[in-house]
């Protein structure tokens, strides 16, 4: 098995961290090989941001995504750039509010209002990335939810376990409603 994943959006949406969490869940809790890379602009907030994760049961040579199984885009700009990386039969996951111009691809497209859910149901935009991870796992089942939750706990500050778990479950359930 091998999955190539792109998480893209704006700087400050926490997508690089989301990529690290996915990679850690796969490497530490599922014993898989992973490579995570990123590209971003000089801005700490705003600007285009991209995290790439490759997960495989064999050692990985090339660290960059060449044909994506899954692309997540939380901004129109990111969608415009990276949607075309989705391979035939792949999955494109979009923020329903941020991405209005939905491209045509030879694969499945899911639209979920991640940012709105984070703000309205959790009360914190900062957990958008965790809601997104929940949906990503719910839709694709590439890793077990437990592994991802453990990795979230490793990589986020103490005291945020509860809120992150809620955010993850929120995204996960929203995905199950669609899948």
């Amino acid at each position, binding site marked *: 098995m091998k999955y190539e994943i792109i998480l893209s959006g704006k700087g400050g949406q926490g997508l690089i961290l989301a990529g690290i969490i996915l*990679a850690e869940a796969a490497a530490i809790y599922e014993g898989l090989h992973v490579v*995570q890379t990123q590209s971003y602009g*000089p801005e700490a907030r705003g600007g285009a941001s991209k995290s790439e994760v490759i997960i495989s049961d064999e050692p*990985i*040579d*090339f660290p*960059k995504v060449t044909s994506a199984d899954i692309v997540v885009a939380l901004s129109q700009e990111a969608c415009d750039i990276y949607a075309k990386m989705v391979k035939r039969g792949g999955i494109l996951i979009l923020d329903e509010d941020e991405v209005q111009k939905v491209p045509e691809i030879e694969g499945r497209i899911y639209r979920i209002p991640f940012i709105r859910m984070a703000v309205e149901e959790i009360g914190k935009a900062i957990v958008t990335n965790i809601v997104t991870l929940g949906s990503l796992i719910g839709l694709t089942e590439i890793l077990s939810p437990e592994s991802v939750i453990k990795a979230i706990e490793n990589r986020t500050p103490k005291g945020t376990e509860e809120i992150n778990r809620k955010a993850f479950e929120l995204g996960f359930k929203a995905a199950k409603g669609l899948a």
Partner: protein
Amino acid sequence: MVELLQGNEACVKGALAAGCRFYAGYPITPSSEIAEMMAVELPKRGGVFIQMEDEIGSIAAVIGASLAGARAMTATSGPGISLMAENIGFAIMAEIPCVIVDVQRVGPSTGHATKPSQGDVMMARWGTHGDHRVVVLSPSSVSDMFWLTFKAFRFAEMLRTPVILLSDEIIGHMRTDVELPDEVEEEIPELEDVPSFHPFGGGKRYHVTGLVHDETGFPTNDGEIIEKQLKRLIRKIERHRDKITIVERLNVEDADVVILAYGCVVRSAIRAMYLAREEGIKCGVVDVKTLWPFPYEVVESEFKLIVPEMNSGLIADDLRKVRNDVISITKMNGEIIYPHEILEIIRRVSN
């Protein structure tokens, strides 16, 4: 224990495993994670971290600390290594071991801070003025960041000279699953032409200077001594090349086409090689980890030679003094070379 580690983090672990106890640096993307982790880890081990006022001060403090007996390093990127250049020469001249990490970004001047390149390969080699030799190591994986940093400290001490770990944004920022030791034991041999090192405070009072000096450390005007000492500084690196050359060969034995690569491009080369083999082309990869002094012997064979680089073809150009049929692939847009870009050339040359 398997960990998810970033290249820059693995670099810190390698330094600590080698006994590094001093770090001085100045923030610069894409190397800053090294400083940040050192600021956390060194005090726990009785070591010292200091953020200096600039890169010139950083390398100066590193050389000072090394002279005071600590294994010491700094990390930076292009603009910073340009500022360090003069004092790297000082460490060469005064024979002070230290490790300098350059996580390369693209372009001269400020260039682009978050985009990778391999544009500093000649800067690393010739960056400081005057005729000299330098040891430069080039990691192509997260685990290399650990092991080559470790080796950099060993080589620096063994040869009493600065060693540059020439990484790049991809390898520095990439995270992979790795399993690394906390401590590594390795003897440091005494070598001919390398004087023994006596840290300050150890009872042997002597003079250290960047002026050309005689064996007592005192400046000299004697042309004969000047030439003798400068030649020894070059010879001590050249004659011990066998002890510092690290090269990895993959499927080279039967290869008609060989891709010679270093740093992050090795990863592209390996994928391209497998893709070529699937098409029936006998292809191999040479991963040159000791970039300087360059192990020219690795290209002295019958195979066709492709050298992909994220610069204007700097190593390919250098290799032309050994063989004139080097096929160079260049890229300078701040992106890694993709495997298919190499595969295309492999197909063309094997037809």
